[in-house]
């Protein structure tokens, strides 16, 4: 590459010509049958065949790097990479411009690079266009030949290191592209324009390497999510181990599944994440005494996958000596105890454990080990009483698996159980690990159909599942979402599944507006105060505060790590605090039913804390946590907030700060998509008096915040997004409210009965007068309307004085309400 442009071109031409000449010569020499030509022809043919077979290979392989001495990184470049580098150099020398950009453009001629960008939901043609635009910019950077040579060295060295990390044979174009994206400022800028960072590119390039990496990393074994049920078909069973030191275990085989057989058949063993848990489990199983491990984690978190991986490693002899050449057998407790009375159960268990002891090479796995302790109807299922002493007495390795709820309910209480097993917690894998797992999972699934899944779709599925679908842990939840989206894509003949489609499917499932606000929603958000005021009178500060929070949330500017907003509405009773919450619930969340309402006056004692997050026995769900788990996007209304016990209020410190809380079953409940409104009547007299004294709302709010420490801890008050003071209602306000409620009644009657009603001003004023109470605000209005309007109307309907199609005018005169039926 140190030749001039002309020199390089001449070398290329002569190489091509030489290849043609040698090929022709070999052909002619071999066919000539002249010995003097025949044998040289064979030599030539061998040389050409070798060149042909190695046309995609570099001069030397990375897997055989010398340990000492200097090496020339260029020897490890694949011919494609070298071509790209040379091609870019030629163009840069002729047309000037940034060498990095010319190289990026050259690399886009390779399918694996194009494919990687397609995986990132980026059209390669758009990227090339962007590169061309940058190249066309004036003034063009002047790079001397020395500078370019130095630059090439930097890029090659970076790509070289990357290839070693990826255990490649040669430095491939995808490695050069990665190096370029990492160290080139111009290329990084272009990637940033398309929302790509080096980590995204790294993962997308896995797709580009696809077959080689896939086969190497999985070793040809299949990926399973959700256990090994039904995996036994076509699997050869080994009754004894390879060293013939064990014995057959016919009874155990009858009630169990041999995981090592399944692993040997390549149907299990793939593991991503959980490395520490796996290592810990192996250490526990390999120790001399009490080699029993209890895997504790939510269903679907990967306990059985870890056990499957152990089975696979046993078949590959990649385990400590204590676990060498063993069989890992899963015991099915339910089949063991079915159709067995007590003596039969005892006999079966004794026989199984006798076989295990005699065999000497069994690792026993008991999934759902809590079933041993579970009682069943009239007959006590006392398998635990029989099996546990046997496990404790014998030193063969045992693995148990259970969930947090069952652990608390059945295992924790049993001291023998706790003594016998070392508990190892299995947490959900991280998002990065889930993405990697799903890349391999999707690559396998893509074999069976033609819909391509982009990396963005996988990442979006993982992020959305982590946020909104908490019923199952990762990667199961993300896998479910991906498969659902995939089914939709197949039905709609979509060739490429993108992140947008995943978002659409997720929104349909959760009713949470995941996407940015569309035009219609944006209009609604910008005018939300007007919409609210169609049903709520006055209280402008409160309405503005709510509107601001919602606009910030939907534009992505709200604080991360907490609820959308947490408000404390303070004011006298009956002034609209709860009404605002209901209106907001209907406008933003779809209906009033989307609201989670908790009356905090029911939590006045210390022990009531458990009712909010669930009882520790798992018998009762949390009155706060369960509804939010089911509807993560909702409004949470905490009425009479000041009446709750201080310990109960402490729960909200974490909710307001982190937006999450752990329930009694150890599940993390996410409040990040909730609006929390707490209402309180604290210091309502002070508010009323201050308003009467003519103080502004700002002054009242400031003073009130200082006074509220009488009821709430300062750290709790600080965590509210806003403390909003509700004013007492004036007569005019109450009239307006009466008018709204009467209009609502008229609308309801029109829709249900076909009866139109109109209310004269005098009637409205009288309803307002009767329905207002300084102590209760506008709360008595509903009862007043019911007594003076609804009840008489109901009587007239029943007497058929008012029928469908009637028009009724309601007035007030001579101390009574008049109902004029016009037609």
């Amino acid at each position: 590459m140190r030749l001039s442009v002309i020199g390089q071109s001449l070398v290329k031409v002569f190489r091509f010509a030489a290849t043609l000449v040698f090929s022709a010569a070999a052909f002619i020499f071999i066919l000539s049958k002249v010995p003097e030509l025949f044998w040289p022809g064979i030599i030539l043919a061998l040389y050409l065949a070798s060149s042909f077979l190695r046309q995609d290979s570099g001069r030397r392989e990375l897997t055989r790097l010398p340990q000492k001495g200097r090496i020339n990184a260029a020897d490890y470049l694949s011919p494609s990479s070298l071509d790209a580098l040379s091609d870019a150099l030629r163009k840069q020398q002729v047309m000037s411009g940034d060498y990095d950009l010319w190289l990026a453009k050259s690399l886009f001629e390779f399918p694996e690079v194009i494919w990687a960008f397609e995986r990132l939901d980026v059209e390669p043609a758009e990227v090339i266009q962007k590169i061309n635009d940058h190249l066309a910019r004036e003034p063009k950077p002047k790079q001397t030949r020395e500078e370019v040579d130095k630059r090439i060295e930097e890029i090659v060295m970076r790509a070289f290191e990357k290839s070693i990390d990826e255990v490649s044979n040669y430095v491939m174009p995808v490695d050069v592209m990665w190096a370029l994206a990492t160290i080139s400022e111009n290329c990084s800028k272009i990637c940033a324009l398309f929302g790509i960072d080096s980590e995204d590119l790294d993962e997308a390039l896995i797709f580009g390497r696809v077959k080689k990496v896939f086969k190497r990393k999985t070793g040809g074994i299949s990926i399973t999510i959700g256990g090994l049920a039904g995996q036994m078909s076509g699997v050869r069973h080994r009754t004894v181990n390879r060293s013939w030191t064990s014995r057959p275990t016919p009874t155990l085989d009858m009630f169990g599944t041999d995981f090592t057989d399944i692993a040997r058949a390549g149907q299990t063993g793939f593991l991503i994440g959980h490395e520490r848990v796996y290592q810990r489990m192996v250490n526990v199983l390999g120790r001399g005494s009490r080699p029993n491990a209890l895997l504790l984690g939510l269903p679907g978190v990967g306990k059985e996958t870890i056990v499957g991986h152990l089975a696979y490693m046993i078949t590959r002899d990649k385990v400590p000596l204590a676990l060498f050449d063993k069989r890992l057998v899963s015991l099915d407790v339910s089949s063991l105890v079915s159709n067995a009375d007590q003596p039969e159960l005892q006999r079966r268990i004794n026989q199984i454990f006798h076989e295990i002891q005699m065999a000497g090479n069994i690792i026993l796995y008991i999934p759902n080990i809590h079933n041993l302790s579970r009682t069943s109807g009239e007959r006590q299922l006392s398998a635990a009483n029989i099996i546990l002493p046997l496990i404790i007495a014998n030193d063969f390795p045992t693995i148990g698996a259970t969930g947090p709820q069952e652990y608390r309910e059945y295992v924790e209480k049993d001291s023998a159980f706790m003594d016998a097993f070392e508990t190892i917690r299995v947490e959900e894998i991280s998002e990065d690990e889930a993405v990697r797992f799903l890349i391999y999972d999707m690559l396998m699934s893509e074999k069976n159909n033609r819909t391509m899944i982009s990396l963005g779709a996988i990442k979006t599925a993982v992020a959305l599942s982590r946020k909104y679908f908490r019923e199952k842990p990762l990667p199961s939840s993300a896998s479910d979402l991906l498969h659902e989206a995939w089914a939709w894509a197949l039905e709609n003949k979509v060739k490429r599944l993108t992140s947008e489609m995943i978002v659409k499917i997720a929104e349909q499932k959760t009713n949470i507006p995941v996407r940015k606000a569309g035009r219609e929603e944006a209009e609604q958000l910008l005018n939300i105060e007007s919409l609210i005021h169609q049903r709520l009178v006055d209280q402008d500060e409160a309405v503005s505060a709510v509107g601001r929070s919602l606009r910030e949330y939907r534009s992505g500017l709200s604080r991360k790590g907490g609820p959308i907003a947490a408000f404390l509405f303070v004011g006298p009773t009956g002034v609209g605090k709860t009404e605002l919450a209901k209106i907001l619930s209907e406008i933003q969340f779809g209906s009033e039913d989307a609201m989670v309402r908790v009356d905090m006056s029911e939590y006045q004692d210390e022990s009531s804390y458990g009712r909010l997050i669930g009882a520790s026995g798992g018998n009762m769900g949390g009155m706060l946590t369960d509804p939010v788990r089911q509807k993560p996007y909702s409004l949470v209304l905490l009425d009479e907030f000041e009446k709750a016990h201080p310990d109960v209020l402490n729960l909200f410190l974490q909710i307001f700060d982190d937006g999450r809380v752990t329930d009694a079953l150890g599940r993390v409940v996410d409040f990040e998509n909730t609006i929390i409104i707490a209402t309180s009547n604290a210091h309502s007299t002070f508010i009323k008096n201050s308003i009467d004294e003519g103080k502004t709302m700002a002054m009242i709010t400031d003073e009130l915040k200082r006074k509220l420490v009488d009821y709430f801890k300062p750290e709790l008050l600080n965590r509210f997004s806003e403390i909003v003071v509700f004013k007492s209602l004036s007569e005019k306000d109450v009239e307006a409210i009466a008018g709204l409620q009467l209009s609502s009644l008229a609308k309801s009657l029109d829709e249900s009965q076909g009866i139109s009603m109109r209310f004269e001003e005098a009637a409205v004023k009288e309803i307002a007068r009767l329905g207002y109470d300084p102590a209760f605000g506008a709360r008595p209005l509903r009862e007043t309307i019911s007594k003076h309007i609804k009840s008489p109307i109901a009587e007239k309907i029943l007497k058929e004085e008012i029928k469908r199609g009637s028009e009724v005018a309601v007035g007030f005169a001579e101390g009574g309400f008049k109902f004029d039926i016009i037609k």
Partner: protein
Amino acid sequence: MDWIFYFVRLFFVRIGDFLRHWYISSFYLLADWTVKFLEWLDRSLALKVTARYWLHPLYQERNVLGYLVGFVVRTIRIVFAVIVYSFVIVFAAVVYLAWAAVPLWLVYKTLEAYGIKTDIF
């Protein structure tokens, strides 16, 4: 004129690469295949594992018969595995030697065709 020197140098480099690939890269390739094949065989013949448990009783029969029969049976197995593995290794070596001899033999045949007698073979 640099390009001419480069082209000539390239010619010799390519010949060197050809010989390196033919002799060294192919050696590593064949060695890898042989090792993988032996590992695959070991999953059935289990030489390593059998040797580790050579003196253990057969099928956990902890009596004279179990120890004796175990020793005899495992010895037979080890011997058989050694023979099979040796055959595989020798076969791989023969294949490699034949492979390595091919270019030399072709050169010899060429020289013979031109009447240049050699005593190499």
